[in-house]
């Protein structure tokens, strides 16, 4: 573990204060959401909890971000909301990245008809604004967290196909790929052992940047009432419900809104740092 901090990469990374801030934000949020049960002042407020005597309390030292209409602590709910967001982000990328990457590898490596078919389909998906595509998928599904994940994954894979496709096309003509072809390596070997590892820097950077944007889209869906349903805490739902009580109970929408801003900012700074570190174009 200590070796990482002595490496050249870490030195370069730590030179940029913004990247380090990004890493800090992301690590703090991830840790807090994993240990949310122990770290939040009122873990039971994440569910359908009611505490009428303490309803609509403004921010104070007991309730950092105030309480909502039925007396639940906004701060605790935000931390649990982060858990939902991160869960959504991880699952969506776990579905979208393998699909997008393998299609991009296949299209870029084999070329010809397969290339044309895969890339045309990709173009069609890319030609609809992402949020609209997710919305039209959600239109036919029940609004639940799982379905929101499916909808967001459906719209996310084409970006990976395009990225990996372009990389594969240029890597295909590199010396090491041609020479392994000459010594008789299988297509499988060339694609997964020669080309894919060389895409990893771009992939890791893009995944980091995308984690923020997936969370953003996910919260947009639940903001419209098409994603996570109450009482599961979710930042988008909290903003949308809180905005009904503006301006008097401002803390119900402002703090969850800021919370989305902070997590997306964290992933963005971290991703930008990685981009400089690996020196890749996304």
């Amino acid at each position: 573990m200590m070796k990482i901090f002595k490496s050249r990469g870490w030195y370069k990374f730590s030179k940029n204060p913004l990247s380090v801030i990004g890493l800090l934000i992301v690590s703090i949020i991830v840790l807090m959401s994993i240990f949310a049960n122990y770290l939040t002042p009122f873990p039971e407020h994440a569910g359908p909890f009611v505490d009428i005597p303490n309803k609509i309390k403004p921010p104070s030292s007991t309730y950092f971000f105030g309480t909502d209409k039925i007396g639940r602590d906004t701060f605790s709910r935000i931390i649990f909301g982060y858990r939902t967001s991160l869960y959504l982000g991880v699952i969506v990328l776990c579905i979208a990245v393998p699909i997008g990457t393998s299609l991009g590898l296949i299209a870029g490596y084999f070329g010809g008809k397969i290339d044309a078919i895969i890339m045309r389909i990709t173009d069609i998906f890319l030609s609809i604004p992402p949020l609209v595509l997710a919305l039209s998928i959600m239109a036919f599904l029940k609004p639940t967290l799982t379905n929101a994940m499916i909808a967001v994954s459906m719209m996310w894979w084409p970006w990976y196909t395009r990225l990996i496709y372009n990389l594969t096309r240029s890597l295909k003509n590199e010396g090491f790929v041609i020479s392994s072809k000459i010594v008789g390596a299988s297509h499988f070997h060339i694609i997964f052992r020669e080309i894919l590892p060389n895409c990893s820097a771009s992939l890791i950077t893009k995944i980091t940047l995308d984690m923020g944007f997936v969370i953003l889209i996910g919260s947009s869906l639940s903001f419209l009432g098409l994603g996570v349903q109450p009482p599961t805490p979710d930042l988008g739902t909290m903003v949308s419900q809180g905005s009904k009580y503006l301006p008097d109970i401002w803390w119900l929408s402002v703090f969850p809104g800021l919370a989305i801003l902070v997590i997306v900012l964290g992933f963005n700074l971290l991703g930008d740092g990685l981009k400089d570190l690996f020196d890749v174009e996304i």
Partner: protein
Amino acid sequence: MLIGVSILIFIIARIIPGDPARMALGPTATQEMVEQYRDKLHLNDPIHVQYWFFIKGITQGDLGESVYTKRNVTTDVSTYFPATLELIIFAALIMVCVGVPLGILAGRYKDKSIDNISRLISLLGVVTPSFVWAVFLMIIFAFYLDILPVAGRLSQDTVAPDKITGLIIIDSIIRGQFDVTIDALKHIILPALALSLSALGQASRLTRSNITEVYDKQYIEMARAYGYNEFKIATKYALKPAMIPTLTILGLDFAAMLGNAFLVEFVFAWPGIAKYGVQAILYKDLNAITATTMIIATFFVITNLIVDLVVAYLNPKIRLSGK
């Protein structure tokens, strides 16, 4: 491309489980009624026949009847679309008029304080969802400072001008009702600002990176050596090559605003296509959803086409290669 989009939407609409006829008629409908409705929607025909009817409807501008409003969805869309169009055009103006100059300044004075400020603004723009901007702007300008209205397109006592284009601002100028124009402008500022901020960040980031790239080129050095003043270098030699790649992305951003309009219209009660779309989704209104998505996709494709043409015109490499 549009054919592809239509197939995609058609497939999404048909593949996903659930009987549209049953959804439209509700749980109280008898089996007979559902069957009749299925016949009406051609749902009992084989899939390629269904697609044929779907395409025939689109080309004739007839996308069927909305289950919720009981009107033809084409009529519905033409009622709601101008409001959205007005909003995104206004937002795009803000994006271009603020984002691009911000990017140019940042790129020109790279690593100076003006660059850092501009990058901070763009970063905040990119990472904040437009509905959060909407809430923040509403609190600051509508409630705290109380200088701008909270919702809608016009104040309640203001009568909208007779419809010419459907864009209230333009209509009222044509008709000479300037008090209506001012009222409409007051209403559009906040939603347009909320909508444009995330695109603005992207636009300025992109302009910045393209400008820095151009400023490293030798012909800029050359122009400096000739003693041209900085303003001439910036406007005549640096801007044009930097704007060509920027323009393509700006076109994409402009079209993507239609997606984000869903979120902003929701907060500001803007009577646009997005509000209609969300309602359609909540009522499982199949024809209305299809129409909304098709309109947006068409808009997206047309915008891209226009941008491609403009880029081809501006870029001598493309313009001259065909001759």
